[in-house]
């Protein structure tokens, strides 16, 4: 296949940046999208041009490091991560526009690389069970109904890639935050800090500058792990019941 790539280039986080057009040829449909970009970068490097910088690591759809807004959609046309997107999803001769995630809370560092440390800070605000290593009860001491464990697992599969923020018209991080709040709200181990957690994580989410939720469902539709917006409803419930009943005045 031959393709035209329209890629956002930006030197660093203060540079204004802009689109540049590149051509790549002889792309195999079995290549992953990132391998196609590797081809472009080899091409650029041979010409002595700075390669296009993009985040990627595991290339098997689980680390959440890869991003890219491809042809108007986060992670491209399929509901998967960019590293799992293959060129068979594109047509010969197509023009592909590649942009970084766009959100105030995800500043662009270079080209297509953004800073997602805001997500880490949301987790640091309360996305954990406060147990120290050692001295915990036997793993089978508290039975957890399979349905609940499975549902908690579904929420826990979030890879923190930020596609939900990228997809949302408000750059809201509700799906990300709610996945963690939900996981721990459902499990017995999460009960002790349940209220505190919801209040703190949402306060941090707001402090990072993510937008509010308009319930468009775009996040769920684009989430490579298929995290459901029922988690958002659950988080809202958790939050409202926490603020009215907690003792944090």
């Amino acid at each position, binding site marked *: 296949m031959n393709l035209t790539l329209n890629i956002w280039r930006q030197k660093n986080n203060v540079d204004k940046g802009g689109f540049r057009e590149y051509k790549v040829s002889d792309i195999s449909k079995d290549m992953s999208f990132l391998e196609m970009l590797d081809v472009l970068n080899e091409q650029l490097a041979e010409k002595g041009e700075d390669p296009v910088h993009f985040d990627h690591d*595991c290339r098997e759809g689980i680390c959440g490091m890869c991003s890219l807004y491809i042809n108007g959609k986060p992670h491209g046309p399929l509901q998967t991560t960019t590293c799992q997107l*293959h060129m068979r999803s594109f047509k010969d001769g197509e023009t592909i526009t590649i942009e970084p995630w766009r959100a105030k809370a995800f500043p662009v*560092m270079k080209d297509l690389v953004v800073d997602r440390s805001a997500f880490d800070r949301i987790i640091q605000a309360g996305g954990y*069970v406060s*147990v120290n290593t050692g001295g915990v009860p036997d*793993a089978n001491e508290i039975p957890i109904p399979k349905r609940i464990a*499975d549902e908690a697992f579904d929420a826990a599969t979030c890879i923190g890639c930020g596609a939900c923020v990228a997809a949302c018209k408000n750059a809201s991080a509700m799906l990300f935050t709610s996945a963690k709040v939900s996981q721990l709200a459902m*499990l017995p181990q999460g009960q002790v800090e349940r209220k505190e957690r919801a209040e703190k994580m949402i306060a941090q989410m707001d402090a990072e500058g993510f937008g509010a939720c308009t319930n468009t469902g775009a996040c769920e539709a684009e989430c490579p792990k298929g995290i459901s917006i029922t988690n958002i409803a659950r988080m809202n419930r958790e939050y409202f019941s926490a603020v009215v009943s907690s003792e944090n005045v």
Partner: protein
Amino acid sequence: MILDSKIPEGPLAEKWSRHKFNIKLVNPANKRKYDVIVVGTGLAGASAAASLAELGYNVKAFCFQDSPRRAHSIAAQGGINAAKNYQNDGDSVYRLFYDTIKGGDYRAREANVYRLAEVSVNIIDQCVAQGVPFAREYGGLLANRSFGGAQVSRTFYARGQTGQQLLLGAYSALSRQVANGKVKLYPRTEMMDVVVVDGKASGIVTRNLITGAIESHSAHAVLLCTGGYGNVFFLSTNAMGSNVTAAWRAHKRGALMANPCFTQIHPTCIPVSGDHQSKLTLMSESLRNDGRVWVPATKEISEKLRKGEITANDIKEEDRDYFLERKYPSFGNLVPRDVASRNAKYVCDEGRGVNETGEAVFLDFRDAIKRDTEELIRAKYGNLFDMYQQITGENPYKVPMKIYPAVHYTMGGLWVDYNLMTNIPGLYALGEANFSDHGANRLGASALMQGLADGYFVIPYTVGDYLAQTPYAKIDTDHPEFQKAEQEVKDRISKLLDIPGEKTVDYFHKRLGKIMWDYCGMARTEEGLKKAKSMIKELKTEFWSNVNVLGGNEELNQSLEKAHRVADFLELGELMIDDALNRNESCGGHFREEYQTPEGEALRDDENFAYVSAWQYVGEDEEEVLHKEPLVFENVKLTQRSYK
């Protein structure tokens, strides 16, 4: 040099308890006077950083990824072993110990492995308490599955994403300590060197991957939790960023590298589809619980298959060779990884491979679907099947998967004693970065176990023993050794950037990978290894004169990052070959064609090679010096491994 493994006295089952009692403690109020650096935030690093911070030490945690949650432990699929015996099927700490020693083809330390089995049960408790959603039975208790190399069900799992769930558990504990101010996090920061002052590890030099700033960090102890070096093969199941740099720099500062040639080739990976391939994707070993491995019985049928004249489903039952079930009736498809991989290679070498390249075998779920329904198979492996379909474009519910072995894990690593300390005092290595527990072959679901055992339950004790004997005063980063190390890092960067070369870093990496795979992969020969050694030497020279590293230092520069890593891989590759050449026997993942039984199984030489090879770096372009730590087996009897 005498290698003191510091294995405690006493009977095997009491060693760890006795040791815990005998080692020195740091008073709770004094712990805040000690700083510990943790490099890497995978299972070992995150769990160690969190646990040490909980105890009161000041921790600095470094990772090259943009978040600690992205460390490659996240990609582990199948599960984590623990001797809980929840299934009432005869498991015990001793059995897990025995299986692991045997699985490792008797090239691991008994005491370390026993301790690993002992603390395995605590790991599961810890993870459940953190809110890790393991798979459960309808009654609400934890579920288990079987894994290769064991005849009990002791593997805990969270669908096909166990590594992810465990890492997120450790990451959450780490995040909590970041919030508490006990851990300072340095993401997008790469360790460039270890600083050794008066023979003790005193800190590290790092490069900020965004700004290029070279910085020094001093501490009382340094923990390297930086994973394995499978990417020396270019194509592996490791993440693109996985590298040997931290371990290698430590090695060049005097830390010994142990058993570097012990590489695990995982049997169930998606085969290479072309030259463009940047990495290989694993299909969890758990698939071998239900999938049956086969190739056509004859070369002729395979040829038809490759030409596309027939499809897998056209091949009649009697024309299928379920070669693992045939050769190993008692373990069948669940033989250990090295055995499964080697047999896949044999049948493909015979011309019975099933894809265009001839390097693939089938992993077929037809019978499992018939037996258990598609729905049940989907519930067990749905995400893996989806992944397979996305990558290959084929539907594994309808046609058998094609798989082929690929580099997956490195059992070798920095030499450590029982306390996980390298031969440099104050420098520790945890998880895949050390060599200690898996011998010559790692059993499935044991990597997660080891990473977390080291981080949660071993290092919090053993690092205290060292710190208790260390003065509070810390070496300042103004110390000349820090200055010197920083300057060396800067010089090396300038040197890389200044090479007026023409070839990209990947060009060299791919060539290195090919040499390693061809000559130091699944099967090795003396002749091939010697040839590979000279090829690597040439490649290294060419790299340092003809590589083209673009951009500058003071910016986000992915070419420069890669160049550093590949430069280290080139040196490591040579050492791996030295190690493979030295080991004139076959064991586990190290298969020397000269040493095999008449049935083609690995032929160990316990009389001459029951030792750990620990290599010492003595200088640029000089042959490394081999030190041997004899392996003493007091509890298990060394036998020819048999899975028949």
